[in-house]
């Protein structure tokens, strides 16, 4: 990534130091500069972590009745203990979710421990390859790869204690820890966050015997599941409405971020937030935008990351810049992963959000957009149709042309667009918030009381 603090002298004058973690008390609306910064100002290092919220902090969002339900369900499973095991403590959606879920369950007196498996580079190379293969990529599963996978799982099995009542293993990396089951009294659950709808047969054939030994499996979408002889549950991924990426923002901060990035709030803004990855089709978004703009005035913001630490990401970013050309209405932002507040502000400033993925996991950027009440246009792939009910909570598209048409339609039918936004937010409130996820875990635990 380019050093983001580098700025031209003009830009230093144009915008005073932005503190993304403290909204300015008195907003200063700055005139747009004729030339945008190539390297907008953001922090080079992650901000200090914010302490996780308490259950009561969610009351103003979900209402007291929902929290009462959680407390009632928790009473029945009080004193039960739970262990979560995954492969990373920071970074990635699973760690982000566990960072919020574990304290909330513990606050409800369901003592929840969180352990992270360890492994060498060779282990994580193998599990990364497994991950891609389970998503359908080509892979040659060697005996050596299997041995590495099993050896590190065995090391972790010997290192870890499993004295809890329920052990939840997240994703394939630690799946073979199930071999500790015979030594425990625990119920074992495999929480699979990835799409298994079209897995590499050899890799799935290798993992499946482990999965079948669990008491239950949990998937993020019904379409991600496999036919298994154990009960399977559907837990949608969730967002935290109080996180930096989703909390309400003072409009002055939204304005500051737009000024900083050269986005004009007086004109319609169409935004896609995603890594620079071909599966997110950012070039297709540029093409759709250009088609739509023949008929409606608008700007395009492509905000994401992944170009600094991923050679393919850098290549995709280059392609996107080439597709955009010198178009002054296209703003391309390569942001570091800790710019959650800036992403939040850009989403809130947007008139429409697009997520034109060609392949997708659950698509939490869609959830984030819906939560902010934004009319959303998204590819009908992965878990997106769970979130976008066509014409009711958003618009599903299958092509560049379809995406262009929906941009035109929603920008010229603001009342319909606003209704989609309202429905979308309610859909998230009912189904995809962290509080709903806590309820699902309590309901599952209750089955084994």
């Amino acid at each position, binding site marked *: 990534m380019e050093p983001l603090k580098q700025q031209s002298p003009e830009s230093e004058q144009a915008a005073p130091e932005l503190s993304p973690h403290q909204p300015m008390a008195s907003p200063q609306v700055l005139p747009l500069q004729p030339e945008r910064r190539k390297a907008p100002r953001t922090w080079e290092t992650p901000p200090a972590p914010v302490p996780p919220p308490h259950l009561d902090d969610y009351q103003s969002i979900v*209402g007291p*009745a*929902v929290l*009462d*339900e959680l407390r*009632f*369900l928790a009473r029945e499973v009080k004193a039960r203990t739970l262990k979560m095991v995954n492969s990373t403590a920071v970074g990635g959606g699973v760690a982000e979710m566990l960072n919020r879920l574990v304290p909330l369950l513990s606050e409800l007196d369901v003592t929840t421990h969180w352990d992270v498996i360890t492994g060498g580079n060779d282990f994580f190379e193998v599990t990364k390859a497994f991950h891609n293969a389970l998503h359908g990529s080509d892979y040659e599963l060697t005996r050596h790869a299997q041995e590495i996978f099993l050896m590190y799982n065995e090391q972790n099995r010997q290192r870890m204690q499993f004295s809890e009542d329920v052990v939840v293993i997240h994703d394939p990396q630690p799946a073979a820890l199930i071999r500790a089951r015979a030594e425990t009294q625990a119920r074992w659950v495999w929480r699979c966050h990835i799409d298994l709808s079209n897995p590499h047969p050899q890799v799935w054939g290798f993992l499946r015997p482990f999965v079948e030994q669990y008491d239950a499996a949990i*998937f993020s979408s*019904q*379409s991600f*599941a496999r*036919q298994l002889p154990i*009960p*399977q*549950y*559907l*837990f949608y991924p969730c967002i935290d409405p109080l996180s930096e990426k989703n909390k309400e923002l003072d409009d002055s901060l939204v304005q500051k971020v737009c000024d900083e990035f050269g986005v004009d709030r007086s004109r319609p803004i169409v935004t896609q937030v995603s890594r620079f990855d071909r599966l997110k089709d950012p070039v297709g978004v540029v093409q759709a935008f250009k088609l739509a703009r023949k008929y409606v005035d608008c700007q395009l913001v492509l905000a994401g990351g992944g170009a600094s630490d991923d050679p393919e990401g850098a290549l995709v970013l280059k392609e996107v810049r080439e597709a955009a050309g010198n178009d002054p209405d296209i703003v391309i932002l390569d942001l570091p992963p800790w710019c959650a507040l800036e992403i939040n502000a850009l989403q809130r400033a947007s008139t429409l959000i697009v997520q034109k993925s060609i392949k997708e996991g659950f698509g939490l950027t869609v959830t984030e957009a819906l939560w902010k009440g934004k009319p959303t246009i998204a590819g*009908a792939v992965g878990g997106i*149709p769970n979130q976008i*009910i*066509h*014409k*009711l*909570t958003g618009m599903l598209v299958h092509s560049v042309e379809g995406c262009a048409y929906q941009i035109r339609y929603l920008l010229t039918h603001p009342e319909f667009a606003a209704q989609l936004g*309202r*429905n979308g937010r*309610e*859909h998230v409130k*009912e*189904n995809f918030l962290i509080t709903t996820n806590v*309820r*699902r875990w309590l*309901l*599952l635990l*209750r*089955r084994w009381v």
Partner: protein
Amino acid sequence: MSSAAAATPQRAPARPFYFNTSAHLLRITTYRADTLAELLDALRECPEDSIFQHTFRTLQEHHFIREGFSNDFAHWVLSACNEPKLAERLASVDVREFTSVAELRERFVQIVDSYLQPSPGTAQRPAEETFYFCASDIVIMPTSFVANTMQEFAEGLRHVSVHSIHHHFIEARLRLKLMSNDFSQWLHEDVGLTEPARALNRIDIYTATLEDVRRQMVRIVERALT
């Protein structure tokens, strides 16, 4: 005061109304459909709690939608099979006309079967996406609201979650085995308010959100109080 309410004697409730609510754990079953023929087979064979999930329960999951959402089968037939006529027929099935899931299943089977009989080719045409049959495990819970008076009843209606409204107003008929709901039953049997009970039972759940339904109920109860 409405003439209907004025004609009905109001008394102290014979029994309190306990507001409960329900929570649901979603299971993914092994039944799925890639064609209308497979949908028909699965409709015949899937567990009853799958039929419940895709009809009664989906109304709760999508309680905020005022128009165009009826049940998951109708939605899939339209969006994945592009069969608007069949979708319309399936969408017209009002869950409140059924007091058992078995009857409801039979109705869906009958509609799909009669649609496919004259056009077997349609039955085998692949859908754009698979329909996955899910199922609900239900947990019923008390809330902190108990109504010993009509005022407390109105207060409860204003403040319980929409899940509680759904539980008493929509799911209730499967429990009661009556074309009614818990609220109307209580108003009729324990308070003697027959007309408000009927008015409440006539509220249309398919053209209103559950919040709209709640507002209509509160209005009916408030009118009965004046």
